[in-house]
């Protein structure tokens, strides 16, 4: 039997390490022939920590929310597969979250040990690279990518083959392949999952890209905030070098290729190609004007092809199965599959890989299980700080590049943050603007100063000091920033504000004219008070209040002193739901 435990950053955060220890201990005690393996993230973050038992006959049982105690119970049970209460998926009956997916970029995540190259090779890994190198037809490789219709998964959606072809066409013999692993969009974590769960796929994809364009050096620009990902990629590189899958004369051919990792240092703007190159060269990460494009003059002025992690993770599969197989999925302008990171107020959060063209509603309700705690859907934010908010009326929009950008949002890297009625859209817009304003590199005036001015306006609206004309001012500033910025950061920074104004204008108006926050989130616009009739004088709220502004005594309803209240909401939470005596308005 094999037991696999998901040890990604999220698994560890949910407590997978103590589970691992218990299982190891139990295996020692029982003395059975059980192999314990670590694996990456299967995407079911809502069930972490996960433990999978695979019998020799192929039956597999996955248990969720495993604590050390549950792990012991599973290990000691004679028939663990009957422990229904912990089972989340079995080989006979896959759950809804998994069964609707088509996993290509994530095909190995959660199945193989990311720190074992042999595991990767066993699943057919590096066969694509071998066939490409031995076939010695770089143009044929680019043709397959063209047939597949693969477009950049990092945000812009540029056709991958076109970039490869342009870099290949350059005369300079020294070329580079750069993998953009600077996954900075808050709310997106598919690249982390690939880096942590299947690093060899990325190396193989990069090597194939290197072969196709004629580069001998690959560089992974990894985010500093992903320590585990960096560690696993570095292990993978060492393993590949040992087997001469990276290095000189790969698979006995003329093709030599190596990969190094360079760590970013925490700057969102470095997701932009030219800023990324500046950062790789040890400079401040500031974008420059294009052209020349990186494919013409990139890293050290040499032709450089830059692709995102998810894009490259698709490449080995496309080479193995053929471009047409990839193109058979998806829509006219968006082929293949796309990974989405489901988060926010959703029941089943995690990573899902689905064919393009599926609707937002299907992803959120069928895969994600709908909204948490029985609340009502309000909006879904797509594409991070460059994206926008899509309201319920547009939930039947298919996910493809064109349809999504028609809504004012963008596909982006695939972050999907779901919001319920308790989320204030003005506050959300302010949140994103605060982010882009902080991350603006400062090169373009419109971006540097414009985002600051927009943030000031949003701050005053949230504080109840909004004025007539503020909405129009935001729209005006937004269009100026879009027009006057050099790179994608500035060109898209106003999107969250503009889309929330477009779809939730009445919420802005409520803040400005009625001085009310309909979602009860903006502190300056709400008050908490206790309904005297409902209050049972239990005193729980007073005990929880951090500023001791609630007073009362037995058989007397409690009262909040408004002058001292900091509107933290502790009383609302403390009040037992059967009484619900704390009212927020």
């Amino acid at each position: 039997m094999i037991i696999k435990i998901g040890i990604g950053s999220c698994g560890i955060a949910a407590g997978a390490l103590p589970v691992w220890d218990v299982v190891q201990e139990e295996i020692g005690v029982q003395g059975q022939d059980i192999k314990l393996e670590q694996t990456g993230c299967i995407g079911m973050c809502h069930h972490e920590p996960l433990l999978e038992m695979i019998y020799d006959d192929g039956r597999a049982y996955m248990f969720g929310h495993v604590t050390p105690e549950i792990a012991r119970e599973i290990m000691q049970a004679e028939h663990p597969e009957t422990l229904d209460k912990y089972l989340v998926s079995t080989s006979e009956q896959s759950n809804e979250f998994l069964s609707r997916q088509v996993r290509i970029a994530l095909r190995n995540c959660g199945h193989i040990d990311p720190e074992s190259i042999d595991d990767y090779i066993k699943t057919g890994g590096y066969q694509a690279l071998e066939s490409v190198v031995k076939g010695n037809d770089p143009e044929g490789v680019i043709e397959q990518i063209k047939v597949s219709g693969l477009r950049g998964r990092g945000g812009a959606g540029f056709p991958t083959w076109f970039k490869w072809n342009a870099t290949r066409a350059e005369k300079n013999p020294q070329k580079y392949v750069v993998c953009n692993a600077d996954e900075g969009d808050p709310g997106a974590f598919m690249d982390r999952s690939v880096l942590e769960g299947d690093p060899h796929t990325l190396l193989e994809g990069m090597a194939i890209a290197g072969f196709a364009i004629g580069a001998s050096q690959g560089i992974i620009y990894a985010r500093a905030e992903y320590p585990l990902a960096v560690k696993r990629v570095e292990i993978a590189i060492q393993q590949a070098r040992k087997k001469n899958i990276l290095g000189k004369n790969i698979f006995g051919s003329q093709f030599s290729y190596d990969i190094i990792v360079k760590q970013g240092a925490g700057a969102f703007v470095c997701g932009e190609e030219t800023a990324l190159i500046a950062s790789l060269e040890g400079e401040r990460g500031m974008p420059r004007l294009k052209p020349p494009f990186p494919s013409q003059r990139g890293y050290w002025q040499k032709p450089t092809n830059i692709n995102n992690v998810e894009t490259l993770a698709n490449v080995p599969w496309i080479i193995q199965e053929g471009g047409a197989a990839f193109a058979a999925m998806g829509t006219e302008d968006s082929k293949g599959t796309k990974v989405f990171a489901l988060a926010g107020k959703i029941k089943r959060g995690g990573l899902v890989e689905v064919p393009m063209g599926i609707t937002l509603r299907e992803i959120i309700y069928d895969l994600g299980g709908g909204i948490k705690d029985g609340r009502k859907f309000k909006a879904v934010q797509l594409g991070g700080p460059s994206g926008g908010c899509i309201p319920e009326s547009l939930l039947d929009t298919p996910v493809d590049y064109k349809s999504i950008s028609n809504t004012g949002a963008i596909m982006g890297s695939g972050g999907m943050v779901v919001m319920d009625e308790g989320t204030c859209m003005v506050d959300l817009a302010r949140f994103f603007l605060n982010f882009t304003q902080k991350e603006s590199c400062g090169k373009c005036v419109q971006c540097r100063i414009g985002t600051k001015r927009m943030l000031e306006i949003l701050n005053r609206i949230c504080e109840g000091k909004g004025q007539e004309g503020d909405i129009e001012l935001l729209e005006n500033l937004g269009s100026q920033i879009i027009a006057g910025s050099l790179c994608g950061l500035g060109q898209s920074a106003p999107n969250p504000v503009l889309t929330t104004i477009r779809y939730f204008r009445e919420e802005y108006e409520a803040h400005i004219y009625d001085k009310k926050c309909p979602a009860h989130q903006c502190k300056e616009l709400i008050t908490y008070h206790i309904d005297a009739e409902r209050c049972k004088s239990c005193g729980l709220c007073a005990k929880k209040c951090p500023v001791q502004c609630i007073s009362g005594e037995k058989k007397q309803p409690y009262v909040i002193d408004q002058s001292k209240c900091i509107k933290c909401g502790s009383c609302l939470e403390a009040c037992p739901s059967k009484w619900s005596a704390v009212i927020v308005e």
Partner: protein
Amino acid sequence: MTCSCQAEDRMEKQFVQADVDLHLMDDILSMYSQEAGNLITVLQKAQDIYGYLPLSVLQHIADGLGIKRAQVYGVATFYTQFRLTAMGKYIILLCEGTACHVNGSERIATALEEELKVSMGETTEDGLFTLSDAACLGCCSLAPVMMINGRAYGPLTPDKACAIIRDIYKQEKMNAEGGVTA
């Protein structure tokens, strides 16, 4: 030769003056001074050694790599990863990502600030904890999340976050007491 506008002098005043053993950098500088483009890597390694980047270290790096001091100052201040003041033993990174924001990270921030009696970006008096925020830690399904010295914790409630801090504090205290006899 310094520039007549004295911007460099003014800039230098922003950094911390500290007397540290610069020889700890010798290996790194000799390894990376041969080729260009390694400034960020060198700053990262220096930060691993000293915990932060005081002025003397920045200047030593500029001299060691043969680049202008202003360039080193520019890069060190551009990226959020570089810390220009001393940090605590435990660095708490509270995630400020979208999923964490809609799931109430602000309340975790308030709770942690109260528990540690510091504001965001500050270090506790005993030098044990630094409270800081991060753009997104990529553990969105476990929101709200914080990371302490590379390990992520989530989903948090204000009470849970404080309990984790108290546990570390207790452990540290026990180690300190045990350390005398050990």
